[in-house]
């Protein structure tokens, strides 16, 4: 059981758990905390991905539970901003944190992504097996428990499949944080430790754009599996 501690990032005070490095309460001007309590998705704020093709999406046990069933078909399962609204600004000290367990590790063509999209999430668009999205900044598990980072602002210099050195197990939750307090040097953390620190991630050309927090599974075809337990999403901005 960790003790409450404080940190100072992007000029904002925040409290965190001293053991897990979970940000329990950022004291920022704009904060969204979604803990997926109850047994129904709050559709005032969130939207499930396309629900066709036998994938399942539910809220249960304090988690959003997003599952591919192994049917040999294109599938989507995810949690997106309601209306695919791009309401968060990467130029204003944006930070997002996700607590996730891949309780069934992705196989075959299954891609799992969580982070930010600078556009709507669309059925049968991929990031790894095809470069269908133009603007994103995500943690990725592509066909396995190996966690990589994909970041693209639709200009030259996109970073694809950058290794974090972390391979997750199906038994463990991890806390993933994306820190865009400097849009020219985005930081990624897993369980409080900086990952892919040798790479400079940028979203410079998104300066005029906004983004949405997302967590989704996608595959174009085959019988790939995958289940994501999404315990929480927290998003905050240092300015409005």
């Amino acid at each position: 059981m960790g003790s409450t501690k404080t940190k100072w990032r992007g000029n904002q005070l925040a409290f965190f758990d001293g053991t897990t490095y979970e940000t329990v309460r950022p004291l920022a001007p704009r904060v969204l905390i979604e803990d997926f309590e109850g047994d129904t998705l709050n559709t005032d704020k969130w939207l499930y991905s396309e629900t066709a093709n036998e994938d399942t999406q539910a809220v249960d046990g304090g988690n959003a539970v997003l599952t591919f069933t192994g049917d040999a078909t294109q599938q989507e399962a995810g949690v997106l901003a309601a209306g695919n609204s791009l309401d968060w600004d990467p130029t204003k000290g944006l930070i997002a944190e996700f607590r996730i367990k891949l309780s069934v590790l992705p196989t075959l063509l299954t891609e799992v992504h969580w982070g930010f999209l600078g556009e709507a999430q669309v059925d049968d668009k991929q990031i790894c097996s095809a470069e269908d999205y133009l603007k994103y900044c995500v943690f990725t598990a592509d066909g396995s428990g190996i966690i990589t980072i994909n970041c693209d602002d639709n200009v030259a210099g996109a970073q694809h499949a950058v290794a974090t050195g972390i391979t997750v197990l199906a038994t463990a939750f991890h806390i993933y944080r994306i820190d865009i307090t400097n849009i020219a040097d985005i930081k990624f953390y897993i369980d409080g430790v900086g990952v892919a620190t040798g790479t400079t991630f940028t979203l410079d050309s998104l300066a005029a754009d906004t983004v949405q927090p997302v967590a989704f599974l996608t595959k174009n075809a085959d019988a790939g599996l995958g289940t994501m337990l999404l315990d929480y999403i927290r998003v905050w901005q240092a300015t409005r």
Partner: protein
Amino acid sequence: MGSTKAKWRGNQLAFFDNVTYETTLPLAPRYLYEDFEGETLNTDIWLANLLGAAPPTVTVADGYGILTLTAAGQAQEADIGASGNSLDWDISKGLIIEFRANIATIATDEVEMHLGVLGEAIVDQQQISSADDVAEHAVFSFDGSGLCRINTDDGTNETTAVTTGITVLPGAFHVYRIDFTTQANVLFYIDGVQVIPATTVMMDDIVSALVQPAMICQKNAGAGLGIVQIDYVKIWQATR
């Protein structure tokens, strides 16, 4: 008007009002705050359990969740539990739950009112005070009067109708807190003052530590009345 002060319980920092002892903000990893704003119960998170034709009601108005029984001589339930009766909270992980409630119409005759947690589903006509129907619970109870008593049971250890010495009046809100940060010594507070301090309440032999918050107003027969206004429910855990 009280001042904001800080406390440290279960290694978690929290802020409270030093006059009412309301915990205004716990900085714990998992935190649910229901303030019953608006005019409809949020059924994404909560379940209204009703029994009786008279009818009893569960409503949301004026910032309160309101449980109302009528004088009809019949079995009645007006309860709020977790949506789906889901047992999503864990008393082995530093759980604390707090209610601000007004016993607006004092329980009469066979009416029982309970505020706390259950380790099982809310079931019609199951009683805690006049029968031992609920195997796992830890609650503040009002049984046919305004005298507040403590009832707990973990399936092995039982605390039965221990008086707190507090008799509430209709119209007066009180802050009721149950602190499970030590499962073998569960603590109860009313308005910041520990009650039944001479009784060691043990909940550490419970088979599963998972519980749901429960607000119950019920009777199995008779013309008894009772109205409970719940201003808020706050529940938090030190670890996930």
